[in-house]
């Protein structure tokens, strides 16, 4: 370990220079005894030991929120332009609308897996930072914590399918990702919220709830009849269908029996 360390140092000339003044007590904590030949290198870089750097208040960079201020916002336009490129990338070589949605879903999936970790580790309540083990807490986590983190508001509704007990429905009246998107006529069945569906799938999978797939469907037009009037109230209303695998439901049953 100690022999590989100087090599890593030399291979990373652009490593940020350490600030020995700011962290003098820490350096002694984790400074491994270095071989004699590398002592000069070490003395010049005292705070760059292997592993995590722990600042004096015991808070690593991972504990800090990426957005420093509470109301920190990202540029919606920046996201919109990035999303344009993501869709253009997914469209390249996509066979049909289903394939395109699958590609968007795949782009979202790793984000979901990572976000699960990030959001759990960041939660202020230590009891809440346990991975959800039942379906309902998991869905609540998605509808509340995940949604607040991504879009600044909770999801609009959560329902269990009446026909299929393995299927849950998460409603979003106005998906943020679709704000600026008008679909061309030949792709009217596409819903670009498939990207968000991918994130949800990633969270479910990461939490140990494998799914048959999460898909996004537009339901804005179907609401028309209920409203009575011509224009639907939420033309962009989207439902995320979450269909868990059989084993998840079996486990859920066992847990319910054990708990009850």
């Amino acid at each position, binding site marked *: 370990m100690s022999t590989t360390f100087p090599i890593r140092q030399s291979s990373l000339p652009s490593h940020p220079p350490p600030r020995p003044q700011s962290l003098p007590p820490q350096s002694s904590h984790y400074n491994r005894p270095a071989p004699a030949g590398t002592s000069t290198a070490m003395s010049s870089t005292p705070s760059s030991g292997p592993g995590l750097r722990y600042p004096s208040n015991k808070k690593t960079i991972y504990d800090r929120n990426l957005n420093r201020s509470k109301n920190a916002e990202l540029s919606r*336009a920046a996201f*919109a*332009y990035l*999303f*344009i490129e993501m*869709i*253009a990338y997914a469209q390249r070589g996509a066979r049909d609308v289903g394939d395109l949605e699958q590609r968007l879903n795949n782009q979202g999936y790793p984000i979901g897996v990572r976000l699960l970790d990030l959001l759990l580790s960041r939660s202020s309540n230590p009891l809440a930072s346990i991975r959800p083990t039942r379906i309902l807490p998991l869905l609540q986590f998605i509808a509340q914590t995940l949604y607040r983190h991504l879009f600044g508001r909770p999801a609009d509704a959560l329902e269990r399918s009446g026909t299929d007990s393995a299927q849950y429905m998460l409603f979003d009246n106005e998906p943020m990702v679709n*704000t*600026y*998107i*008008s*679909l*061309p*006529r030949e*792709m009217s069945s596409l819903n*670009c919220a498939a990207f968000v569906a991918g994130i949800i799938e990633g969270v479910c999978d990461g939490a140990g709830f494998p799914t048959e797939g999460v898909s996004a469907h537009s339901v804005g037009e179907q609401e028309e009849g209920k409203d009575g009037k011509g224009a639907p109230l939420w*033309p962009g209303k989207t439902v995320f269908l979450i269909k868990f695998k059989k084993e998840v439901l079996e486990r859920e049953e066992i847990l319910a029996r054990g708990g009850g």
Partner: protein
Amino acid sequence: MVVFALFIISKAGGLIYNREFHTGMNKLSSNDLLMLAGSFHGMHAITKQLCPAPPTPTNPASTAAALAPSPFSNRPSGLEVLESSHFRMQCFQTLTGTKFLLFTEPQQPNIDSMMRKIYELYSDFVMKNPFYTVEMPIRCEKFDRGLDGFVKVRG
């Protein structure tokens, strides 16, 4: 308060959007409209060329400013408002060369703010739409809807 129509002309002179909000202007075939947009594009360029020399400045400070070579601020703007006895046409050219033509009643107030709002709708729902190709005809449902809501609220 009546807004008759909105045309958008691409920087190459092609008509990429036309929308009638209120009847009152002649109905034209799409072919005629395309020709009209093209010829307006040319006329707009001529109005730029016709710019008369700036009047002799009265104070020496502005003379110095006029002498300073500045290719951007000195560029003539081209046609901005066209008035006829039936309507008034406001032409707004973006920095990228796209032209917005808004046809209103002759006495319509606040056209500048309307134009700004339309430009905003355009940059949101057209330019941020992943399925829009620049310089191509605009077919964006949300842009249409935004314009509808805006013009209806106004009118």
